[in-house]
């Protein structure tokens, strides 16, 4: 989900320098490399840079809220996410630079650096955590990958990959399982706790073209131990590999947004 988040926030950073296995798109009958599959999905998701607009629905037993978000990402680590609606939340923003996270709240008009210990807290009241936003490449770099199965579905092949954390990796999960489609679309990510019990799940519920690529445009994050709680993100606009000005990823832009317009180009 981090990716998810990522995706969510669409913070997708630069493509890792890994050679994109074209294999992602091909259906090579010999067993594909699981790490390459995950890397392919990540690249599909982010890009060297990205701009996305997302609608986030947070559902709770007693209420449901719809938030609108703009997100910019650059490389693996830098991202800016700003809420644009509803009015109560508009202007709240999160900036991630390198490994650090800052939060801006318009009501108190202050930028606050998030303490490292708070990264696992809920992000803006959703089922995503700040970690989900930040650890874009964790699934690739902190885990070892094993292909569990390879099944046909809806005219595609779906690969199920098990990711086990490396011995010294700073991760909270016991393991993850990831489903990736042969056209590099992430279909599902399941998070297990240290007792190997599944605790939450990110599901792709709709795949559609976005910004010139096949994209998981609707995803739902669900804690598995709490019924009737979930957060759904829907991508409404997505542009990838575009040139973003450096001022976007600064504290001053976090606090006082400078006007920025989507450069003309193909429609999202």
């Amino acid at each position, binding site marked *: 989900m981090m990716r998810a988040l990522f995706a969510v926030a669409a913070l997708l950073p630069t493509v890792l320098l890994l050679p994109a296995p074209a294999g992602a798109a091909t259906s090579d009958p010999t067993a594909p490399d699981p790490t390459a599959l995950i890397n392919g999905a990540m690249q599909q998701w982010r890009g060297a840079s990205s701009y996305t607009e997302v609608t986030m629905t947070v559902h*709770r037993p007693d209420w449901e809220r719809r938030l609108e978000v703009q997100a910019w990402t650059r490389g693996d680590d830098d991202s800016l996410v700003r809420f644009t609606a509803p009015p109560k939340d508009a202007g709240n923003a999160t900036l991630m630079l390198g490994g650090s996270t800052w939060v801006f709240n318009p009501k108190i008009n202050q930028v606050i650096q998030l*303490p490292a210990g708070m990264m696992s807290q809920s992000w803006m*009241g959703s089922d995503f955590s700040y970690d989900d936003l930040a650890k874009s490449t964790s699934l690739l770099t902190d885990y070892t990958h094993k292909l569990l199965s390879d099944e046909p579905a809806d005219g595609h092949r779906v690969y199920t990959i098990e990711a086990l954390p490396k011995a010294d990796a700073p991760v909270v999960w016991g393991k993850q399982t990831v489903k990736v489609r042969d056209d590099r679309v992430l279909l599902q990510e399941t998070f297990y706790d240290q007792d190997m019990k599944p605790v939450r799940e990110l599901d792709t519920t709709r795949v559609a073209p976005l910004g010139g690529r096949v994209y998981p445009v609707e995803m739902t994050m669900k804690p598995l131990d709490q019924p009737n709680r979930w957060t759904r993100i829907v991508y409404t606009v997505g542009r990838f590999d575009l040139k973003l000005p450096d001022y976007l990823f600064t504290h001053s832009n976090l606090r006082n947004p400078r006007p920025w317009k989507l450069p003309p180009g193909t429609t999202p």
Partner: protein
Amino acid sequence: MILRLAWRNLWRQPRRTILSLLSIAFAMGVMVWLLGLQQGVYGQMESNFMRIVQGYAQIQPRGYADDPDIDKTVPRPGALARRIGTLGLTASPRGSGYAILSSGTRSRGAMLLGVVPAAEARLSAIPTAVHEGRYLRDDDGAAIVIGKSLADNLHVQVGQPLTLLSTAKDGSVAADVLTVVGVFATGIGEIDRQFAELPLSRFQATFALGGDASLIAIGGPSLKAVDRRLPALRKLARAAGLDAQAWYELEPGLQQAIHLDASISVFWYATLLLVVVFIILNALLMAVLERTREFGMVLALGARHGLLGRVVWLELVLLVAMSAALGMSGGSAVVLWQAGHGFALPGGDALFRNRGLSGKMYPALNAFSLLTGPAAIGTSVMLSGLFPYLRIRRLEPVSAMRAV
């Protein structure tokens, strides 16, 4: 007649009897004191620790203990607090939530409590632990008191602003700027490092709680008094669709630590008991052997073995009874005196402080601490007295009379 015989036998050798009596009495007295000390310290740990923030019990939303989420709340806490008051307990509605506190470029995660200052003063130690500035007042607005280590970590002082950031009950961002009016130091690291309190009304507004509270902390004349009213509290809570939590449910770790300590000390007591019993048994056996000629004579005069054995065993019972009277009164006198004055263990100060204790220990006298030690020693001594008894039953009058 047996009784009179036994009594007289005891005092035919006053020095031996008094020595045995004193050693048994001393062992019993020590046991009374040790158990009293242990019970007292446990009681102190429980009530002092719970008194700092948790309260002696709490009423919480269902499932709050497992997952203390800001969206689980106690509706109309005022009405419930008044009903708890009719049980003779004090109740303090609180908001409770995790937040980021930030000052300048520094920020820390903290446990925030929204409190009613007047009610807190009756059940929490924090109002009296404020050592810089002051505690909250009922007319405070944007005010906050924070633990000393938290203040140090944030580099914030009394009079300075502090920013709060969290998630409100409705999922929106909870943000506020408060002024630090006081810094408290309870001596408990975890609390001084993590806790901060602000007025409940402010907490409710910031966290979109409306008139709800997160929980109700409960105090009373003593932890035991609150424990006794637990059934009533649980009933009250159930009727409102809530849960009542006893102190040991709020702090299972504390209870486990106490249980662990108690089970370890059982070994110490068992060792002490064994040593004492062997010493006493040795003395008794010597006493019986010493009197072999005398027993032979009595048997030769026609006394039955059973009668003689019973007399000797009764001597032992009398000895134990006298020792118990002496040991228990001596031990409890010391315990009672120290319960009033406290007992300081050199070097234990910091250790105790971190467990919510003052530097002094106050032993407690109750039926358990008074009776357990003497009962164990008395029973063991009387059982081991069967040994001389059996020996007497096997005595031959003639050879016994010849024994040296």
